[in-house]
C-alpha cells in the first residue's frame, strides 16, 4: 500500500514519490523554437510530446513552443538560472511548488497506468523519451517515460496529488 508518499515495493511494481524536484515552464517567444532556445543551453529541445535531456535537466514537450523543465538538483535557483539563460527567446516561470512527481517502475507499471490513461502506452508507440499531457481519473497529469523497464514519471498539480494517490491505491489494489 502506498501512503503519504512513502512508497511501495512489490514484485514487478515499484512506486515512489520523488522529493525535491525543481520545475520551470518554458514558453517560446515569437519566432523562437526548440532549436533556437536549445542553443542557449547546449543542445536542441525536441518539438513534440517528447523529452530532451541536457545535463541534469529533462525538458518535457507539453505543447507547441512549450516545455516543462525539471531537475532533481534541488537547486532553489533552478528557474532563475534558466530564465537568465533563455532571456529574450523564451519566458520562464518557476513551477517548483506546483507539482508532485510519482515514479512508477517495473513489469506491471504499464498495466497499472493503462487503467487510468486513455492513450496507448504500448512500447511500439510510447517508449523511453516519450511524454504525454493528459488526464487520469479527471486529474491533469504529465507523464514521461524514463527507461524501458519501463519507468514512468507522473507529475500532477500538488493540490490534486492526494486524489491521484487515491486513484493509484485503488487501481493497484484491484490488480
Amino acid at each position, binding site marked *: 500500500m502506498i501512503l503519504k508518499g512513502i512508497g511501495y515495493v512489490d514484485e514487478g511494481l515499484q512506486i515512489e514519490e520523488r522529493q525535491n524536484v525543481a520545475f520551470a515552464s518554458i514558453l517560446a517567444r515569437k519566432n523562437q523554437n526548440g532549436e533556437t532556445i536549445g542553443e542557449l543551453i547546449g543542445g536542441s529541445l525536441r518539438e*513534440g*510530446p517528447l523529452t530532451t535531456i541536457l545535463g541534469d535537466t529533462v525538458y518535457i514537450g*507539453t*505543447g*507547441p513552443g*512549450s516545455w516543462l523543465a525539471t531537475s532533481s538538483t534541488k537547486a532553489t535557483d533552478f528557474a532563475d538560472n534558466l530564465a537568465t539563460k533563455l532571456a529574450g527567446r523564451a519566458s520562464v516561470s518557476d513551477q517548483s511548488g506546483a507539482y508532485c512527481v510519482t515514479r512508477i517502475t517495473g513489469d506491471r507499471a504499464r498495466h497499472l497506468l493503462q487503467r487510468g490513461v*486513455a*492513450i*496507448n502506452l504500448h512500447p511500439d508507440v510510447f517508449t523511453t523519451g516519450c511524454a*504525454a*499531457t*493528459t*488526464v487520469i481519473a479527471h486529474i*491533469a497529469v504529465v507523464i514521461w517515460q524514463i527507461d524501458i523497464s519501463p519507468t514512468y514519471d507522473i507529475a500532477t498539480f500538488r493540490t490534486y496529488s492526494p486524489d491521484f494517490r487515491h486513484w493509484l491505491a485503488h487501481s493497484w489494489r484491484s490488480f
Partner: protein
Amino acid sequence: MRIVCPYCGDRDTEEFIFRGEALGRHPGLNSDEYAMFEHVYHRTNLSGKTSEHWYHVQGCRNWILVERDTLTHTIYSARLAKDGES
C-alpha cells in the same frame, strides 16, 4: 469520439472543450453594428461537415481547428488553429 490533436496525438473528447464554429476573424471594432451582431450571434449550425474550434485544455492547451460531421461525428481533419485556415 476521439480527436487526433496535431501535437498530442489521438485523444478522447473528454480532454477538449468545444469552442463553437470556426467563425474566422472578429470583424474589428470599427466594423458596423450589424457585422458585429452577425459575428457574435449567428451560426450556420448545419447537419454535416463543419469547421469548429476545440480547445485542448487537458493536453497541449492549444486551439485546434477540427473538421467534423455533426451528424455522424466523423472527424476529417484537425490542425492547430494558429496555423491558419488552410
